[in-house]
């Protein structure tokens, strides 16, 4: 499945405080987060981003706090994938866990400029820059993470495994209808 969209380009160390400032954290409602996404770094972002667009950045994207509001805000803004030279650790796992696709590809990240058109194939990791006519390939996600993403995120993954966990691991509270016996 490939997605087309425009590039919103940023530099190194885009932190979670600029992706969604703490002053907006008293609500985790999507529309609210989308409205203030990237506000302190790129005040025009929220009004100009369109569904399918990409955020492309250099190293250490999403550094800072563990707030899941950051990937949620990007997802709520319609961003279909974040491409970066590298990701901060917690941002990476949060994005996987909530189902915001991301690709790590320094070459593609450096090559892209604001406003250019990309076509990304999440399955193969191919990133085609339609404006420049070049293509780069991101390293694929490890199988375990692909499983979580394929399930639709960690919650769905855990829910799907619930009966198995109840049986194999003897975790009774994972059984539907069971009472938590630690209570």
């Amino acid at each position: 499945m490939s997605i087309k969209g425009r590039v919103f380009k940023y530099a190194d160390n885009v932190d979670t405080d600029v992706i969604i400032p703490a002053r907006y954290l008293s609500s985790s409602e999507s529309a609210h987060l989308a409205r203030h996404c990237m506000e302190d770094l790129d005040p025009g972002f929220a009004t100009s981003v369109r569904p399918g667009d990409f955020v492309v950045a250099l190293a250490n994207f999403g550094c800072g706090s563990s707030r899941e509001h950051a990937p949620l805000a990007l997802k709520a803004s319609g961003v279909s994938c974040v491409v970066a030279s590298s990701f901060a650790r917690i941002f990476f796992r949060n994005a996987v866990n909530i189902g915001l696709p991301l690709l790590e590809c320094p070459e593609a990240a450096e090559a892209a400029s604001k406003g250019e058109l990309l076509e990304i194939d999440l399955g193969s990791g191919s990133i085609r820059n339609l404006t420049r006519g070049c293509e780069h390939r991101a390293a694929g996600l490890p199988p375990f993470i692909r499983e979580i993403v394929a399930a639709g995120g960690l919650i769905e993954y855990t829910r799907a495994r619930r009966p198995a966990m109840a049986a194999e691991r003897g975790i009774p509270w994972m059984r539907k209808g069971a009472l938590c016996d630690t209570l």
Partner: protein
Amino acid sequence: MPMTMTQKIIAAHTGAEAVEAGELVEARVDLVLGNDITAPVAIREFEKIGAQGVFDRKRIALVPDHFAPNKDIASAEQCKTMRDFARSMGIEHYFEIGEMGIEHALIPEKGLVLPGELVIGADSHTCTYGAVGAFSTGVGSTDMAAAMASGLAWFKVPKAIRVELSGALSGWTSGKDLVLHLIGILGVDGALYESLEFAGQGCPTLSMDERFTIANMAIEAGAKNGIFPVDALTREWAASVSGRAYREYSADPGAAYSRTVAIDLSSLEPTVAFPHLPSNTRAVSRAGNVSVDQAVIGSCTNGRIEDLRVAASILRGRKVAKGMRCIVFPATQKIYLQALREGLIEAFIEAGAVVSTSTCGPCLGGHMGILAKGERAVATTNRNFVGRMGSPESEVYLASPAVAAAAAVAGRLVDPSDIFPAPARTRANKEKA
């Protein structure tokens, strides 16, 4: 394959004999932590899993600290979501205001983390507990939700950077100066996906409070965790907070490290991180003429009793510079009370500082001391990103309690030893070391 300390703790929680760097594993968690910002999201996600209860009502900790005492209606709702969930699930470790504190000071103080344990928290500074020789790391709300249901979390086993400490701190230098210096060397992503493993004969010279400060900021170098070896001081600390049994782990001889950074503690100077990155460090003696509007002393990084003692030793009998604000926020109720008994609170108030209840408040630009456009703060907190403490056009300089207190008196960044005679290091651990 020889393993690092972190890898051994992870392996012990997966049931595997050994784990290797880069491997993805699912591990059992000893404690799952959340706060008033991250837990409400986690609770909403938890409900979607459809589990009938939490995996263990004694192994979840919920701390309303960021916007508590409730700063507005929205945050009141968030705290209420957490309170209601704690009640309905029978969660034992829910800390209402009155007994609460900033989570990363509170959790160790309550004895909820001990050496060798594995803790995840939906807060990036969960790495603080590496100070006691535990593996602890920050995760997101969804991780928290899944772990509350299953007691499990997925990890990529980290490589490690060895931080070899020698010598001992002197004068006004502290654990904060060490960690700022280290982040300056590594950069904000220098330890990305890796653990920072402290080693060397400099370790036992650091007090527990200093170790907490250092491990707290591991994330600021991008690290998954920062961990200290367990020693006599750790054991003494553990016995003072909990009677629970625990297991000690240490790195195998010959464990692989991606690099080693050697730091001589005696060579450090009071250090400050300039805006807008924690890695933007320099010795405060080379800071130039930087005037400040507000000094903030506290947080999960430097809101412990030793930090308050140092700040009070500078502020006692002096005055906060005219036109300058100084805000002190002890990290927990217990620390607050201790500071009160020791006369530190009196020293702060007489100097013209305000003392806030235990809350994250100003640290994240939440409440209790927001900066206006163009204002500058020196803070003992851990982040100085754009807009971190208020207006996107304000600035935050990160420093130790000594530097922040000296700045409060001088009205600008100064090396404390320029104005105040450096104390002999008489902390308890010095004699023990």
